[in-house]
């Protein structure tokens, strides 16, 4: 069985995996450089990272065919750390990120992705696209018209060339053409070489040069924790996307551990932390990549390209890179979500927009997701809180009034519950039948207490029926959802 799945993961799609891996590698190079620039480090940090993460995740990951490398989402989180403490602290933070991600995998936190709603995911993706786009703006401000012309031409080639042939990656054509034009015309515009050091050798194992003290931990831990969360979020989302596209399933917890292993190794090889990439994974699947081989080829080929034709990479004009990154941002953005704004429920749209706004405002995807998840929980509680009905009628010739409570009583609906009773009614006795209601928490129980006390003050006797059934849903105490017949208790009345 193991041999079989090994063969299936690696060798069932060799030709397509090889070709797709090449396409992806070519697109990874500009991205790795661009994300290094976002993070404020030399391009070689991002390039080494992309090589190392892609290569290791090919073996350790849980989702064959998914591409992981240095990413924009992660680069944005590390900006301040690099600015204030330098590269070595980033490498240490990268290693720690990996450790945290492995822990998350062991604790099976991958499954907790179910609390991240569709709207939050859409918001995350859109925010990511906007941030990638915004990161290109420094390259497009205070520059000569040549840069604008070059960028426009680059985009023209990227989107136009596939109409001629789809056999060759159009971003590569754009880069080659723009580089040739810039050299031929001797244009004085910024090139990749101006942005920092490129790799001139294979990466080597290095311990991050930081003091092993509590101070260091205090500096890197917050960053690492955020990196771990953001990396896992994007990886889980991308895995779900690849699952959908290829109609197959992935091992989410193995992916968490794999991301961790990849980041640890990357930190020691002088690379920045990374994660799965939505855009690149879509490109890979689109080019026919399905197996682990595609990811491995992408990583290895990327490094070979950069090390052996590094001189040429240095001469690529930044305008060409900007064009590629604008393409990535357009391809990552969920355009349907704009059309859907009008049709979807307002609460979903608010969650999506809040996720985008908070992320773009703080440049931190973790914050955006946190706000999105809290808001979706809030809206859900609000909606469910409205499922509460209290009806009543008198019995025994006007001596007794029976209230029938149906629906959900919990913190969000307890106020409505209390207000549903008529305390001013002059009557001997009220009977409150809660056997068809669910009391979810302590707030619900104390709301009922309050109702009883209010009636007693009016000298009205109170009888509560069916409280045991109703409060059986206080799952913390009774844990009915774990037991056989739990469904009956929850649904039956």
């Amino acid at each position: 069985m193991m041999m079989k799945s090994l063969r299936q993961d690696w060798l069932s799609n060799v030709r397509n995996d090889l070709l797709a891996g090449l396409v992806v590698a070519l697109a990874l190079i500009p991205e790795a450089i661009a994300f290094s620039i976002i993070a404020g480090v030399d391009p070689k940090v991002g390039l080494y990272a992309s090589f190392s993460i892609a290569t290791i995740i090919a073996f350790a990951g849980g989702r064959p065919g998914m591409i992981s490398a240095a990413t924009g989402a992660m680069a944005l989180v590390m900006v301040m750390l690099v600015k204030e403490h330098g590269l070595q602290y980033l490498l240490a933070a990268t290693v720690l990120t990996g450790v945290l991600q492995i822990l998350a995998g062991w604790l099976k936190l991958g499954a907790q992705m179910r609390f991240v709603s569709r709207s939050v995911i859409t918001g995350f993706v859109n925010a990511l696209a906007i941030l990638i786009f915004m990161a290109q703006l420094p390259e497009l401000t205070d520059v000569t018209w040549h840069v604008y012309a070059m960028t426009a031409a680059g985009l023209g080639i990227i989107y136009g060339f596939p109409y001629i042939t789809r056999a060759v990656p159009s971003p590569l054509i754009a880069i080659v053409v723009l580089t040739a034009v810039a050299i031929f015309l001797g244009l004085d515009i910024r090139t990749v070489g101006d942005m920092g050091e490129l790799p001139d050798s294979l990466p080597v194992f290095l311990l991050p040069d930081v003091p092993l003290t509590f101070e260091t931990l205090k500096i890197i831990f917050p960053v690492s924790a955020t990196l771990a969360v953001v990396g896992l979020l994007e990886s889980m989302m991308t895995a779900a996307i690849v699952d959908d596209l290829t109609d197959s399933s992935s091992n989410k917890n193995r992916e968490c551990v794999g991301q961790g292993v990849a980041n640890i190794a990357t930190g020691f090889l002088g690379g920045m932390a990374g994660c799965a990439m939505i855009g690149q994974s879509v490109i890979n699947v689109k080019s026919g990549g399905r197996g682990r081989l595609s990811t491995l080829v992408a990583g290895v080929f990327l490094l070979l390209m950069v090390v052996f034709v590094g001189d040429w990479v240095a001469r690529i004009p930044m305008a060409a890179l900007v064009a590629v990154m604008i393409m990535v941002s357009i391809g990552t953005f969920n355009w349907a979500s704009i059309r859907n704004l009008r049709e979807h429920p307002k609460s979903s749209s608010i969650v999506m927009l809040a996720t985008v706004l908070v992320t773009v405002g703080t440049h931190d995807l973790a914050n955006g997701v946190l706000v999105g998840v809290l808001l979706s929980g809030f809206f859900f509680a609000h909606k469910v809180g409205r499922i509460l009905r209290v009806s009543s009628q008198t019995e025994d010739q006007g001596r007794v009034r029976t209230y029938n409570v149906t629906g959900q009583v919990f913190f969000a609906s307890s106020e409505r519950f209390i207000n549903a009773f008529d305390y001013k009614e002059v009557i001997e006795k009220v009977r409150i039948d809660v056997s068809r209601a669910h009391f979810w928490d302590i707030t619900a129980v104390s709301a009922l207490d309050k109702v009883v006390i209010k009636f007693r003050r009016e000298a009205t006797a109170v009888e509560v029926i069916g409280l045991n059934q109703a409060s059986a849903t206080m799952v913390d105490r009774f844990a009915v959802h774990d037991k056989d017949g739990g469904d009956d208790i929850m649904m039956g009345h």
Partner: protein
Amino acid sequence: MTPENKVLACVDQSHFADYVADYAAWAARRMDAPLEFLHVIDRHPEQGSGDDHSGAIGIDAQENLLKKLSAEDEAHTESAREQGRIFLNRLRERAIASSTATVDVRQRHGELEETLAEQEADVRLLVLGRRGESAALTHRDLGRNVERVVRALHKPILTVTEGFTEPERVMIAFDGGSVTRRGVEMVAVSPLFRGLPIYLLMSGKPSHDAPKQLEWARTTLQSAGFTVTADLIPGDAESIIASTIKAQAIDLLVMGAFSHSPLRSLLFGSKTAELLRSSTIPTLLLR
């Protein structure tokens, strides 16, 4: 739900399917069991189709790709389904023509091994071609599915090769082990070989209680009304079985299968696989 106790014939779209169908129909007739043809359509999500190496992603790239891929899968499944249906109906008519009473067909998605494991409870006898669709391409003597399927299941499996002749002389390769002892008991009570002469062969390393065990098998079958010839020929089981098949004009072999672990057969080779490769007569494998 009571198990259907059917004869399940696994067919793929190769010319071997006809012989599988013939033997399955023969077995169903003899056992008075319903016959079902099963065609498994493999799906390969691990294989990509890639003619687009443009590497450019534009507006709604993800949605468009999802639409394109699912449309491709849909078209592929539709044509496979229709093709399979026509092919299965041809086999069904072939079986009905040979006066088999109840014949049904079924197509399933998935892998052969998994599908069979799911269907196993309702199966009395499984009929399987030893080679299949890819035979001409791979030149393998034994289809790659056979060992996997046999190992995954716990029902008797009739494996067939090319050609169909109604079996008239049956040989049981008896080794005294629990599997073949159970096999002898099964043959004794089954209507499958009723009325056919049975040749009991015991070979391999000589042991002192071999004659006793062979005698037990002979009397078990005889008391069930079979005409039995028993032989004890010490020596290399594989070559003796092969030569006896020729000498006695046997046209169906019954034997235990893959009693050793997959690791062992990977290292030392498997007797079962060797025999299945070298012999050309249908073989009933017991698990």
